[in-house]
């Protein structure tokens, strides 16, 4: 059980698109986006089984997601969380005067969190807002 440091990128996946259009409050959206895709070598470094929950932390926040094996890999050193409330808990908020937060290229640490649960989209956002 170790902690690893990765370069996090976010973006669309077809599962993210389909589940988003089926209702962001539904469990399918959480299954599609409350994940982090990791290279098999990074899963090995973490010392976890795939499909277990991990805590992803950056300078900007922290979130529990499920670690799955990269579907579009290999990409050692890169973590992928589909765009959505989970990714947006940890992305780099700096816009550098362009208006655009730095959604790709956030330095994050990933550590095992087997006993934590992944929250649904509404709970992630409302909890962060203090409700």
């Amino acid at each position: 059980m170790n902690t690893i440091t990765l370069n996090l990128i976010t973006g669309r996946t077809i599962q993210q698109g389909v589940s988003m259009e089926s209702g962001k409050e539904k469990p399918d959206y959480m299954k599609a986006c409350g994940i982090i895709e990791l290279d098999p070598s990074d899963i090995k470094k973490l010392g976890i089984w795939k499909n277990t929950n991990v805590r992803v932390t950056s300078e900007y926040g922290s979130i529990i997601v499920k670690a799955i094996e990269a579907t579009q890999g290999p990409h050692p050193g890169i973590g992928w969380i589909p765009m959505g409330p989970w990714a947006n808990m940890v992305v780099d908020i700096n816009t550098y005067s362009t208006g655009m937060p730095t959604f790709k290229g956030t330095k994050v640490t990933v550590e095992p969190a087997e006993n934590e649960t992944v929250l649904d989209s509404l709970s992630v956002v409302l909890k962060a807002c203090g409700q």
Partner: protein
Amino acid sequence: MSKLVTDVICPFCGTLCDDLEVEVSDDGKQILEVRNACAIGATKFLHSQASDRIIRPRMKQDDGTWKDVSYAEAAKYAAKILCEAKKPLMYGWSSTSCEAQATGHMIAEQVGGIVDNTATVCHGPSLIAVHDVGIPSCTLGEVKNRADRIVFWGCNPAHAHPRHMSRYSIFPRGYFTGKGSKSRKIIVVDPRPTDTASLADYHVQVEQGRDYELLNAIRVAFKNGPLPDVVAGVPKEKIYEVSRVLKSGRFVVIFFGMGVTHSLGKNHNIDEAIAVTSDLNAYTKASIIPMRGHYNVTGSGQVLGWQFGFPFCVDLSRGFARYNPGETSSNDLLLRNEVDACFVLGSDPGSHFPNKSVQEIYKLPSVCIDPHMTPTAAVSKCHVPVAFVGVEVGGSCYRMDNVPIESRKVVDPPAGMLTDDEFLKLVLAEVMTIKGAA
């Protein structure tokens, strides 16, 4: 008996497919089947039929529960918070028609609001780059019929624009591209070997965030200049080879996406991608097209452009239009606590803005106009469900190549449900009353 509605426009992504067929029940109230659409587009049509759909506006109570209100009451609340605010943010506009956008802008002019669309977290840097260096572009029809070199730079249409490749860029047989995918060379530049990369002749696995260096190296390679052994994680031999392939084409089209706009460098990455395109025009014909996300984000830029002169981040709070991304952009305003009301239509910043910005929206008086229950609705004080544009009401939309297409109504919305344009007109009337202009 069911009816078949043909030539339906898909209101999901900027590809704006115009060949969908939707089977509807005889009374025109229910969608039975959607043909020709991608998985996401079909889901969008079918989800409008969900039995648990919210059909009445709701206000959040002090205990966090929702109370149904009428559209008139919701419009009154929206008008009140907009008029009372010194600097209201009116964000979204990308999942609605140009007609509704124009009505929204009339409200913004009255209340001195800031109008920003989803380009602010999507192709905003591309728009800034276009101001800087211009853009040599073309339509998707020209791509289909003429392009024999296609570059996907930092975009993954297999996931984000699923029918783009079959309709325009990789597979279709066009007038001068009669052999379909065999008449084209495909180059994908992405730090991951994506599903789009699996269809490519060349996958250039650039180091994440090093797009500028690689684009610059390609410009050097065009002129056969010297390169270091490795640039941005890519061996120089590959860079020379890719630049030869590009120069040897009859018509090169570069499609680019969030890989360049979201990474550091931002608008400067796109400056350089456009420079690659204009350099290529010394050898052959080349164009560049941003892969726009929402089906009508391009339309929002167009309408804002012809009304105020700027495509996003338009600040009307001083009584005239100002534009300064970084200052008048949604995330910067929210993170600096500069707005005092939030009005969201046709977008979901609750999901797609960094959470720190969402926390600011949660603290503000706010209205969310969206057919779905979304994280934005959850953090807003008032949620107004409306009819789906492109499914339950028509309206003008702009495709990613700036071609306007009229979307079509397929079924009736639930009884008593307003369209976003109708609701915006109610808000506008209330605003005019408060301002004493009616």
